[in-house]
């Protein structure tokens, strides 16, 4: 058990270092091998969590007040599984996507290794400060990935992203400093009993600062301005990684703090993230509907889909809400990775990036269009996809809590998603000659996109196993 927890951080660091030592553009094979092992470890961990309730590991044998405490429960095991699965698929995609001379490829492998190590470390961390360090590792690696390749537009987007992510972590760390000042500890397990209903103003401020910082990092409206340029202009495997996993990391931490530390005090404020989330669903969808470039459409769809995650906070008293949010994280992770992968194929094949220039693509790339459509099914929330289950559970818990506004937002969001997905499909299915001659695309790219999209739909049938992880011991 401690070995697999440590392995999930050490293995990606090892192949990242190896890739860096091998020199620019090399190390893809090591990444592939490493991720296969990590996938096995994550699966092993998930099964262990399923049998016993949760697991604590003291890194290096040092316990909580001094040492770094690691903990794995159902939520972290799910995030770990999702990270390895999407990481593995996108590494296969990236190996086929980058040409030998592409400048984006030069430092891709070391940075991806760091990114995945940071994500894994974040999901197993059980103290506030360690969470800050992992957030920074993830943030800096992600900025490096966006800027790699280096034309002006990308570098501008990377800088904007860097300032946003630094600002977010600065707010978060100021909150951590106040918490430490008040209680003299940053470990979740020591803090939880101290945070009773009677809280000083300093602690409330600390909670507010941490929440604000993490909202910037998870691109919740009105802090979403950095996301579309960064995700829209990065190279495709990077966009997919960022949209599917990196923004979820900050959300995961919000959820963890909310549930483990601030549950009782934060409840009266739950309407705030939900309101912002509702605005994000509507505004993000609207910008996706009006976007000119295909990858910007997909990036704004991420802004909208992240909004759903924040709708859940007023409903957390009911058991179904937690299942809804985990289902939405997994469904959106798989579907958005698939959608970016498919969009990347369409952009390279048609040699242009505008939605209006996609006519006739379905004739040449039926598999990719099918992948895009299947991912769209999940984002719209049509049965039997995992996205349907997520929205169904969300609506169910909103009904139970009498929150009609949330029901309306979820339904409206689904319709708006249908509009932007069909905007692309209508153009691609048009029986017209393509704007420019099609350039050949490796089949691997198409199959990876299709597999990810298929997984996001088929997961709807195996949801019981996944949701069972959240309540270990109870058969799913």
């Amino acid at each position, binding site marked *: 058990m401690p070995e697999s927890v440590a392995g999930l951080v050490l293995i990606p660091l090892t192949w990242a270092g190896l890739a860096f030592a091998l020199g620019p553009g090399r190390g893809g094979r090591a990444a592939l091998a490493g991720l296969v092992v990590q996938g096995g470890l994550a699966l092993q961990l998930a099964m262990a969590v399923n049998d016993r309730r949760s697991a604590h590991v003291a890194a290096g044998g040092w316990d909580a007040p001094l040492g770094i405490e690691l903990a794995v429960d159902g939520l972290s095991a799910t995030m770990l599984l999702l990270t390895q699965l999407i990481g593995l698929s996108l590494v296969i995609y990236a190996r086929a996507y980058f040409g030998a001379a592409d400048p984006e490829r030069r430092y891709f492998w070391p940075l991806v290794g760091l990114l995945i190590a940071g994500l894994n470390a974040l999901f197993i961390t059980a103290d506030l400060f360690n969470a800050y360090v992992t957030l920074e590792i993830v943030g800096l690696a992600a900025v490096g990935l966006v800027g790699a390749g280096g034309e002006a537009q990308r570098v501008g987007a990377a800088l904007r992203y860097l300032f946003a992510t630094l600002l977010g972590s600065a707010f978060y760390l100021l909150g951590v400093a106040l918490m*430490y000042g008040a209680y003299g500890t940053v470990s979740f397990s020591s803090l939880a009993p101290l945070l009773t209903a009677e809280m000083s103003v300093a602690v409330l401020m600390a909670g507010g600062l941490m929440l604000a910082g993490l909202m910037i990092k998870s691109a919740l409206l009105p802090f979403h301005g950095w996301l579309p340029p960064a995700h829209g202009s990065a190279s495709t495997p990077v966009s997919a990684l960022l949209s599917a996993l990196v923004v979820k990391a900050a959300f995961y931490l919000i959820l963890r703090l909310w549930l483990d530390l601030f549950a009782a005090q934060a409840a009266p404020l739950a309407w705030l993230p939900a309101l912002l989330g509702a605005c994000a669903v509507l505004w993000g969808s609207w910008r996706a509907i009006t976007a000119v470039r295909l990858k910007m459409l997909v990036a704004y769809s991420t802004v909208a889909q992240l909004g759903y995650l924040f709708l859940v906070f007023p409903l957390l008293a009911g058991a179904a809400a937690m299942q809804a949010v985990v289902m939405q994280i997994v469904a959106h992770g798989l579907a958005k990775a698939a959608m970016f992968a498919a969009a990347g194929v369409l952009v390279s094949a048609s040699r242009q990036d505008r939605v209006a220039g996609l006519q006739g693509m379905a004739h040449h790339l039926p598999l990719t269009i099918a992948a895009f459509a299947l991912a769209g099914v999940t984002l719209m929330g049509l049965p039997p996809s995992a996205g349907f289950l997520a929205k169904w559970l969300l609506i169910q818990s909103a009904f139970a809590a009498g929150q009609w506004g949330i029901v309306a937002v979820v339904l409206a969001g689904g319709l708006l998603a249908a509009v932007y997905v069909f905007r692309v499909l209508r153009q691609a299915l048009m029986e017209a000659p393509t704007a420019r001659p099609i350039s050949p695309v490796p089949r691997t790219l198409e199959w990876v996109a299709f597999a990810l999209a298929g997984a996001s739909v088929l997961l709807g049938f195996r949801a019981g196993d996944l949701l069972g992880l959240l309540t270990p011991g109870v058969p799913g």
Partner: protein
Amino acid sequence: MSSSMVFAVTGVLLFAIGLAGMLIAAHLLRKVLAFNVLGSGLFLVLVGLPQRDGMADPVPQAMVLTGIVVAVAATALALALLRRLHALTGATSLPRDTDA
């Protein structure tokens, strides 16, 4: 006012100055410098606020060391990116958001 409060209030003021700089300054180098001012304020709060019987608490000092490493890395990355942007376009501020 106890010494820990002096540190904390000074730190928060520095944080606010840095924050204003990051949001208002258009020149990218000023933004990077403002981030460092903000970071210094942050570290001052982290080190200065927790005191035990008038003595500084050693644990946050270890945290601040980590924080300084992160801040140096972030500054280096920001400088590399803005040099690249300057070399490519001659711009010293962020380009306007284009797209839709």
